[in-house]
C-alpha cells in the first residue's frame, strides 16, 4: 500500500512540475486560477454519516472544469493531519485545503496557515477567530441545529414526546443540536423531554449500540443522535422497535419501519462557492455560516415513522426557519436552573456558538 501511495505522489509531483513549467516561461495571464482542492476526512468517506456527507458534496465538484480534488480519509486528529495537509500543498499543489474534523483546527490548521500564507485553509466548525487566527484560514459551518429543531418538531408529533439522544462529545455544536431538538419537540408538545447519553468518542459502534439500548430501556420512544456514523444507532433502535430521526446523511434506508426524518448537511453549496471564488481570484469569506435560509441544510424525505401532523408541522417549521424565525427565544433555563437565554437570539448569534449548557427538559450532563 505504501508503495502505490509513493508512486501516485511521484506521478502527481512530476505532473504538477510539468504544469508549472509549461505555465512559467510565457507568462500568459490566465483568466482563471485552477483550483486544487485538498480535503481530509477523519474516517472512511462512506460511513453513512459526517464524512459521507462531505465526500458526496466533493464528488459533485469533480465533474466541474478547472477543479482537481485530492482526498485523504482516515486521518486522525493528530500530527498526522498536519503531514497530510502539508503533502497536499507541497506535492499536489493544493491551493484550497478543507479540514473536515473538529480537532484538526488547533494547532494543525492554524500553524500550517501561518506557514503557507498563499494557501486557503477552511475548517468545518465555527472556530476561526479574526483577532487571533491567520487571515488565510477560516471556518464554515451550516447550523445543523436548525435541522435538529425540525427533527424535534417531527419527533414530538410522531411520539409521546420522550426523545433519546446519543451524543459523541459535549462541544457547543453537539449541545446546540440537543437543545434545538428539545425546543423543536416542546414547540409542539410542552411536555416533551430529551434524554442524552454521551459516548465520549466520535465513532465507537459498540458503545453507541449500548447507549441506544440503554435509552430504549429508559423508555425513549424516538432515538436520534450526533455521532460521526449514525448507522449503528439507527439500526439498533429500529431493531428495538422504536422510531428514529437521522443525522448528517440520509439513514432512511436503514429504518424502513420507524424512520421519521433526518437532519442533513448540504456542503456542496459551500464548496462550490469556495471553488468559484478562488477560480475568480477572490478570497473566499473567512467565516461562512448558514442554514435553511441559504440552502446549506436539507431534511431527509419523511419515512414511515412520521405521522401526517408531524409532516405538516415540520414543513411549517422549515418555512419559518427560512424566514429567519429564532429557535432560542424568550426566557430559557438550563437543567441546573440558571437562566441562559433571556431574549430572542438570532439563529447565528455568536453567543450561541459558545453554548456550554443543556436546557431544562434535557436529562444529561456535559461533564
Amino acid at each position: 500500500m505504501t508503495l502505490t501511495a509513493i508512486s501516485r505522489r511521484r506521478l502527481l509531483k512530476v505532473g504538477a512540475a510539468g504544469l508549472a513549467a509549461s505555465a512559467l516561461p510565457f507568462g500568459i495571464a490566465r483568466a482563471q486560477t485552477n483550483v486544487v482542492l485538498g480535503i481530509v476526512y477523519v474516517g472512511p468517506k462512506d460511513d453513512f454519516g459526517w464524512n459521507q456527507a462531505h465526500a458526496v458534496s466533493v464528488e459533485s465538484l469533480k465533474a466541474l472544469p478547472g477543479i482537481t480534488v485530492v482526498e485523504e480519509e482516515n486521518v486522525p486528529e493528530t500530527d498526522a493531519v498536519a503531514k497530510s495537509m502539508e503533502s497536499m500543498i507541497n506535492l499536489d499543489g493544493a491551493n484550497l485545503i478543507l479540514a473536515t474534523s473538529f480537532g484538526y483546527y488547533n494547532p494543525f490548521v492554524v500553524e500550517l496557515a501561518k506557514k503557507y500564507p498563499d494557501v486557503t485553509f477552511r475548517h468545518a466548525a465555527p472556530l476561526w477567530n479574526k483577532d487571533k487566527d491567520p487571515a488565510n484560514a477560516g471556518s464554515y459551518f451550516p447550523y445543523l441545529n436548525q435541522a435538529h429543531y425540525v427533527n424535534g418538531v417531527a419527533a414530538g408529533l410522531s411520539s409521546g414526546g420522550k426523545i433519546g439522544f446519543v451524543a459523541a462529545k459535549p462541544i457547543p455544536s453537539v449541545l446546540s443540536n440537543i437543545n434545538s431538538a428539545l425546543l423543536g419537540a416542546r414547540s409542539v408538545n410542552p411536555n416533551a423531554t430529551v434524554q442524552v447519553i454521551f459516548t465520549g468518542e466520535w465513532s465507537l459502534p459498540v458503545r453507541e449500540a449500548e447507549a441506544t439500548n440503554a435509552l430504549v430501556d429508559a423508555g425513549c420512544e424516538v432515538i436520534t443522535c450526533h455521532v460521526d456514523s449514525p448507522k449503528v444507532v439507527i439500526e439498533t433502535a429500529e431493531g428495538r422497535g422504536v422510531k428514529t430521526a437521522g443525522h448528517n446523511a440520509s439513514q432512511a434506508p436503514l429504518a424502513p419501519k420507524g424512520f421519521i426524518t433526518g437532519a442533513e448537511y448540504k456542503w456542496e453549496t459551500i464548496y462550490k462557492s469556495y471553488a468559484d471564488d478562488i477560480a475568480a481570484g477572490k478570497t473566499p469569506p473567512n467565516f461562512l455560516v448558514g442554514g435553511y435560509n441559504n440552502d446549506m441544510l436539507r431534511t431527509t424525505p419523511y419515512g414511515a415513522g412520521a405521522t401526517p401532523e408531524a409532516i405538516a408541522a415540520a414543513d411549517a417549521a422549515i418555512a419559518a426557519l427560512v424566514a429567519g424565525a429564532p429557535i432560542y427565544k424568550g426566557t430559557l433555563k438550563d437543567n441546573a436552573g440558571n437562566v441562559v437565554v433571556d431574549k430572542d437570539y438570532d439563529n447565528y448569534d455568536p453567543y450561541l456558538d459558545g453554548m456550554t449548557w443543556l436546557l431544562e427538559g434535557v436529562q444529561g450532563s456535559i461533564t
Partner: protein
Amino acid sequence: MDNALVTVLIAMLGGAIRVSTPFMFVALGETLTEKSGRINLGLEGNLVLGAMVAYAVSYLSGNAWLGVLAAGGSGIFLGALHGYICKLPRVNDIAVGIAMMSFGTGLAFFFGKPFIQPTAPRLDAIPLGDWTGNPALAQALQVNPLFFVGIALAVFMFWAFRNTRWGLIVRMTGDSAASAKAMGVSVDLVRFLATAAGGFLAGIGGAFLSLYYPGSWNQGLSSGQGLMAVALVIFARWDPIKCIFAALLFGAAGALGPSLQSIGISQGYYFFNAAPYILTLIIMIISAGSKAAARDVPGELSITK
C-alpha cells in the same frame, strides 16, 4: 433509587451477554495459541477481517451462518500465515503478530469498502427472558447462540487440556519444546495448528460483531477489542473458564457508562466509560504479582523467556 439500581444491574447483565462474545472467542483462540508456546498479537486483524468477511458473505449469500463459517475460514487463513511465518528461523512471533494485525485490518478495509452501505441478513437471538414479563429483562436475555457456543467451547477446552492426548501435547509444546521434541512431537506443526485454530475462533468473534452486535460492518467496528481480548488471556491466567468470566466482566463494565447516564447519573461519564480498562489494570496488578500466577504462564512464551 432502588428501581434505578435494578435498571443498571439489568443493563450490566445485558451488556455482559451482548458485548462479551467477541472477547470470549478471541480470548479462547489466543489461549489455545499461547498454550502451544506462541503469542499471536494479530488477532485484532482476524477479528476485523472476520467481521468484514462474515458481513460480505452473509450479504451475498443471504445466509448469516454461512457468513460465520466464512469468517472462521478467513481467521484460519491469517492464523495459518502467522503460524507458517513463525516457523521460519529467527522470526519473532510478536513482531509477526503486529504485522498480521495491520495486514488483517488493511485487507478488511480494502475489500470491505463496498459492504459498508448494504444491509446484510443478521444472526437471530434466542429470547430467553420473555417469561419474566419485564421488557428490560427480556431484552437483556436475548441471547445469541454463539454466546453458548463460546461457553461450551471453554468448558471443552478446559477439559481437553487436562484429559486428552491432544490437549497434553499442546501444553507440553508450550511448556518445554525440548521435551516435546524428545517425545517425537513436531513442535512447529503443533504450533502451526494451534495458531490456525486460534485464528479460526477469532474470526468467529468478528462475525458476531458484524452480524449480531452491534450488527453492521464499518471500519471502526472493532475499535481495539481484539487487542483487549489478548490482554484478557493474561488476566485469565491461560485458563479457558476464567476467560469466560473475564469477558463477561469486561462486557458488564462496558455497559456501566451508558446505563448510569440513562438513569440520570450523568456526571463523570468519561470515567465510567474507562471502567473496563481501569478494572483490567487493577486486576492485572493484583493477579500478576503472585508466585502462583507465574506458574500458569506457558514456559515457552517469548515474553517470559
